[in-house]
């Protein structure tokens, strides 16, 4: 963590590889207002990248463009060796199954157990009733889901309904579901936003530790300066839909970063 990594460099111990994500001249506008103007950056395998920016700077839109939850107006996105913009519906589904997403809101199915929710992650590679409910799943899938729950420290809550868990626990179940997916890249959109400060920090630490253990690339939208400094290797800052900052975290000056967190007065 916090190792000074320059663009093109690779996490310690691994062989040098190219970027797992390469964004070139990305533009996104909604019939008039331009959200992203010519955004270009790269992310490298095993590196944790924090995206920061004030409200309305385009961070969430950028994340949505990366997995085509919204279509970019122009520009190119290359992720995991695929031209994301050129994917047809089936290929897009296969591509998305390789990307783990942790949302601001946990987006779990409230009336189901933690185990069933985690098990849904297997739908990235398995379909049919065996992937719908924990009681219908094959033993090895249930075991893997239990292992994922164990990694987020909630194995003892497996059969509890998720709407009976605390906010922090729910977000950890969502992280376990993401692990179940066996993703190659993890995108996180302010996963700590709806949590109290302590739970938020726990969730960020957990996410960052898990990504490091599995050698995953983590791209996290962050809205807390202290989390950005603690849990990222590199920081890119968005302002007015453009990247105005791109530094390794170790070389970042917290005072200069502060302007990316200033919220405009309501």
């Amino acid at each position: 963590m916090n190792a000074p990594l320059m663009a093109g460099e690779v996490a310690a111990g691994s062989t040098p590889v190219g970027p797992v994500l390469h964004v070139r001249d990305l533009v996104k506008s909604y019939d008039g207002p331009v959200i992203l103007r010519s955004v270009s950056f790269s992310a490298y395998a095993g590196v944790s990248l924090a995206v920061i920016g004030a409200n309305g700077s385009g961070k969430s839109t950028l994340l949505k463009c990366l997995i085509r939850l919204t279509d970019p107006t122009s520009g190119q996105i290359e992720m995991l060796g695929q031209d994301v913009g050129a994917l047809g519906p089936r290929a897009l589904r296969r591509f998305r199954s390789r990307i783990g997403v942790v949302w601001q809101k946990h987006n779990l199915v409230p009336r189901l157990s933690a185990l069933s929710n985690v098990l849904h992650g297997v739908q990235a590679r398995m379909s049919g009733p065996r992937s719908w409910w924990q009681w219908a799943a094959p033993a090895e899938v249930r075991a893997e889901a239990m292992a994922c729950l164990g990694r987020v420290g909630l194995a003892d809550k497996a059969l509890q309904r998720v709407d009976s868990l605390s906010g922090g626990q729910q977000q950890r179940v969502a992280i376990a579901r993401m692990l179940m997916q066996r993703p190659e890249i993890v995108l996180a959109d302010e996963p700590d936003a709806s949590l109290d400060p302590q739970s938020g920090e726990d969730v960020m630490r957990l996410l960052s530790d898990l990504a490091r253990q599995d050698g995953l690339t983590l791209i996290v939208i962050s809205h807390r300066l202290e989390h950005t400094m603690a849990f990222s290797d590199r920081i890119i800052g968005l302002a007015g839909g453009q990247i105005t900052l791109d530094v390794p975290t170790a070389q970042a000056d917290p005072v200069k970063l502060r302007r990316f967190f200033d919220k405009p007065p309501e």
Partner: protein
Amino acid sequence: MTQAIPAPPRFRHRTLTEYAVILVVIALVLTSVANTAPSLDKLERGVARLFAPSGFLMQMFPPDFSRVEHIAWKLVETLQMAVAGAALGLIFAVPFAILATDRLSPHPAVKIVARGLIAFFRTVPDLVWAIFFIIVVGLGPAAGVLALMIDKIGFAGRFFAEAMEEADTGPQDALRAIGASRMGIIFSAVFPACLPSFTATSLFALEKSVRGSAALGLVGAGGIGVDLKVAFDLFNYDEALTIILMMLVLVVAVEQASSWIRAKLI
């Protein structure tokens, strides 16, 4: 001395069109009543006949319980028709409802067709469906079950679709982002979220089905209604009263049981 504040006009000024609409409505009500409602002396004579010593009401009392066992068995058949009709209707309502939703329907044209069919099934009364199915499968309970089924597809299809439209879209989007199939999303996110609403709708459908099934026999579609019609045709008004009372007991019992289950489950 305080100055008198002028009071606002008693009536709002209305346009000529508004007056015209009011006149048309009044004319519609008056002509309808004049043409179809019974005249006062007709009502008077009718009521007098009802209470005459040889009249209908007098002949109803005391109710004739001599054939109570036969009637009880016909009631069981009526209940079985209701349960079968409701169960089949609810099962077929689910796919219709899925196709009728904005988010889950595979194509807008499919959605319009599904919505149209649901509305059609609901609008045509179950007695008319019963006459139609008597032509198709002949007299007896089978026609009644089919009529109840079609009526229930119309009833439950609409409420199932509404429940699915109202379900939180977050979990569905999260599964879509994982790469889950449409069926996966429906079974693991939509149905669990809609379960309380589906249960309530199903119990209402059963109640409606029980009430409906009692009348279907009047046109020959099986159940207790056949006996009721025969009793009336043969002027066995005391037996007719027994049938009506026993139907009442059945309907009230089913309604009580259903509201008890609803309260327990939801």
